[in-house]
């Protein structure tokens, strides 16, 4: 009898120290389907799939592929069985082009590299899936979406009949996600099974044939497409808490009508920034942000949003124009002096630019504030007592899950790290908050928390400049949205004029 399940994981248990990451988890995925694996951060999704891929070994449990019991000790074993995994962070060799990356580790001949043959094979797979990407460009020069395609092709080239995608949409924009979905559909038609790990309900609804929901290391339920509803999935994911969600499965927040300040907190006047590498920089950008409003800047990654964020806190990057905060020009100020004028910042890439990985939460909260009077004695010594107080206040106000402010920040989850970064922005009085993709990669509960903090800032009369590539999010929290494309401002919309189609089209230059 033909087995209809390709993968069966039975009674998997995995313990890290004292933490039970997976508790008696049983998971099956049928042949030729896209099977979602849904759960908030830390629910055990990645752990489960890393066990299947051989990166972790389970403390208990069995793995069956095609009905046969298998033993997987390393990715070497899983690749042989036909399992491929695309991780959240690119594992390509940046100096190699697509073909070199794809064939890495496959040629059997020790001395000859059959690059022409392999290239033909790679092209064939690409054609079958309707994927196109340059084969001869070093992968470090390619955008995230393309790198991901290369990783998928690499897994297929190694003969994968099961493809695991770990949070594949983290660095994709809407149109890239659509394209990914199309390719996955083509794959499934050829009989490949796809496991799609995500914490976004919207993506599960749009892409999966069935879904397994994990919560705190336990399977909540497995349901088919017909029975999937937003409300049901939210309930399974969070159980104890009822949160309101919008059409796009994002948390709902209220923007009460308040009077914005008479004078703008921040005036950006005709600024220009020279672009680095492929980016075109910024050309003649002007806008104003008032107290009591959230001013959204919508931009597809690579259209100048990075330059805008950097120039706001590091005005030495400006080649032209001026930025005024509370009426004073900050053009000639250093980053620390800009912060001292009441500007706060949360960067886009929270791990790379946001935190001191091995540093404690306390050291992290202090970053950027360490030259303020409150934290500096005699202009020389750090006042660690004040720093401890500030860190404890942040932990309390922002519900950071940690035993102490001395804990190394890298041991926190992504959501808690973002809370610390957000808390750091409010350690000192803040007139203008510049925040770049504040919710990327976070689960709905944390997103709701961050949204509420931004709105609270606005309601208290603060000015918020939120640069974001997720238009759905901006439409929920912004009072106004400006569109940035190719380094130019393509219009500013009032909340009453928000229209997803119209703004989305401007974002891609239509």
């Amino acid at each position, binding site marked *: 009898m033909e087995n209809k399940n390709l993968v069966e994981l039975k009674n998997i248990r995995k313990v890290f120290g004292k933490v039970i990451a997976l508790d008696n988890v049983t998971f099956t995925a049928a042949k030729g389907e896209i099977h979602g694996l849904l759960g908030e951060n830390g629910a055990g999704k990645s752990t489960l799939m890393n066990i299947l891929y051989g990166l972790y070994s389970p403390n208990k449990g069995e793995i069956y592929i095609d009905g046969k019991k298998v033993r997987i000790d390393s990715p070497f074993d899983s690749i042989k069985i036909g399992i491929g995994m695309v991780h959240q962070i690119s594992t390509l060799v940046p100096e190699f082009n697509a073909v070199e990356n794809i064939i890495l580790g496959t040629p059997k001949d020790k001395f000859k590299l059959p690059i022409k043959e392999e290239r033909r094979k790679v092209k064939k797979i690409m054609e079958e899936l309707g994927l196109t990407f340059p084969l001869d460009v070093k992968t470090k020069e390619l955008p995230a979406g393309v790198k991901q395609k290369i990783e998928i092709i690499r897994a297929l080239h190694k003969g994968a009949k099961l493809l695991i995608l770990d949070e594949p949409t983290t660095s994709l924009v809407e149109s890239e996600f659509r394209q990914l979905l199309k390719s996955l559909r083509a794959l499934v038609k050829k009989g490949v099974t796809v496991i799609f790990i995500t914490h976004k309900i919207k993506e599960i609804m749009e892409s999966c044939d069935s879904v397994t929901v994990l919560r705190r290391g336990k399977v909540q339920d497995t349901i088919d497409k017909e029975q999937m509803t937003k409300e049901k999935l939210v309930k399974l994911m969070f159980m104890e808490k009822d949160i309101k969600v919008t059409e796009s499965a994002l948390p709902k927040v209220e923007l009460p009508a308040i009077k914005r300040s008479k004078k703008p907190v921040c005036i950006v006047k005709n600024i220009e920034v020279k672009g680095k590498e492929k980016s075109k920089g910024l050309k003649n950008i002007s806008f104003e942000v008032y107290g009591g409003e959230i001013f959204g800047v919508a931009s597809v990654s690579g259209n100048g949003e990075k330059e805008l964020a950097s120039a706001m806190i590091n005005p030495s990057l400006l080649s032209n124009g001026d930025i005024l905060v509370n009426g004073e020009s900050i053009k000639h100020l*250093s980053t620390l002096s800009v912060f001292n004028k009441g500007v706060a910042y949360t960067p886009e890439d929270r791990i790379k630019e946001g*935190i*001191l990985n091995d*540093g404690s939460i306390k*050291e992290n909260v202090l970053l950027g504030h*360490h030259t303020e009077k409150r934290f500096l004695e005699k202009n020389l010594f750090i006042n*660690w007592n004040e720093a401890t107080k500030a860190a404890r206040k942040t932990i309390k106000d922002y519900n950071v899950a940690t035993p102490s402010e001395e804990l190394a920040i890298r041991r926190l989850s992504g959501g808690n790290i973002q809370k610390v970064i957000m808390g750091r922005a409010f350690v000192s009085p803040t007139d203008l908050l510049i925040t770049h993709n504040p919710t990327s990669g976070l689960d709905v509960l944390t997103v709701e928390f961050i949204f509420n903090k931004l709105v609270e800032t606005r309601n208290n009369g603060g000015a918020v400049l939120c640069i974001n590539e997720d238009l759905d999010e901006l439409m929920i929290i912004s009072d106004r949205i400006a569109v940035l494309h190719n380094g130019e401002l393509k219009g500013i919309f009032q909340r009453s004029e928000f229209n997803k189609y119209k703004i989305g089209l401007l974002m891609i230059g239509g």
Partner: protein
Amino acid sequence: MKKKNIIQNGLLTKLLRSLSLYGLALLIAFGLISVIIALLGFSVPDALKTLITTSFKSAFGFQETIKKTIPLIFTTYAFTIPFMIKFFNIGAWGQMLFGGTAVAAVGLLIGNFGLPSFIMIPLLVVVGILAGALWGWFAGFLKAKYDINPIISTIMLNFVAVLFVNFIATSPTFKDPLEGHPITRPLPSSAILGFFHKIPYSIIFAILAIIFVYILLKKTKLGYEITSVGYNLHAAQTYGINFQRTIMLTFLLGGALAGLGGALEVMNIHGKLIEGFAKTSGAQYGVFGILTSLVVAGSPTGVPVAAFFMAVLLVGADALQRTMQIPVEMVFLSQALIVLLIVIIRKKFEPNGGK
């Protein structure tokens, strides 16, 4: 209250764990050393006893150990501080020589003015610090302004410093006419630091340096900035810390400490500038400073203990050669084995490679 206990317990287990790892590494290293000694036909118990206990058996052994610990502390810091922001200062050797040479030259030039000790000694100490700081800062400057790899620049600056020693030691202005070798005239007695029960007074400066480095790194703004850059350069820069300035300052500080170490060697141990200073003590402390720092994974707090431990080995090794005629190569071999095994064991057993 309860929370605090948990943290302290955590620290204690961490300390015990770390000690047991060092113990394991030493055990394996001494095991291997024993095998080699046995193969060479020497008595293993005698050799091990000599290697480990020479420093503690006699007053002389202990004094020798302290004499070696002091300069090692300085050169180890010279490597450790730039290493905190992931740069290699191979130049502690040159910075030490430059400090020592500057002290000898200035000390002899102003020697006839009849300045009293309480002016002469602080003055020369400052000269040594400034000279070393200049030599270190220059490598940092080359990195910050022209992106020149400090490994290259510090090695080159070492060579220049060696030649500078030769230049001063052979120049007619400074050379002792009574000596056949290139050696300067002795420094005036007002410039000489004495001994207290054969322990050099330079130990006071070493203790001050330990306190200084601790306060600098743990309590000051600059220390926080250095630590932050070490943790994550991108984040530190994003939040306004000036990376170029931090590079120059770490090399300046490292150089200053090595320069002080060199000054103290000249003022306390040699009493004059000997050409051999470049090859024997300078090179030895320069290289062993790097090893000592790596043994404690570049952790500044571990430096004094590690330097003392290394000095025990150095003294024990000298004794091996002197009393048992075990070839000197054997001595280097055992030191290398110990350092390698500590590094390997730590990488293997400690998460994050001991950080």
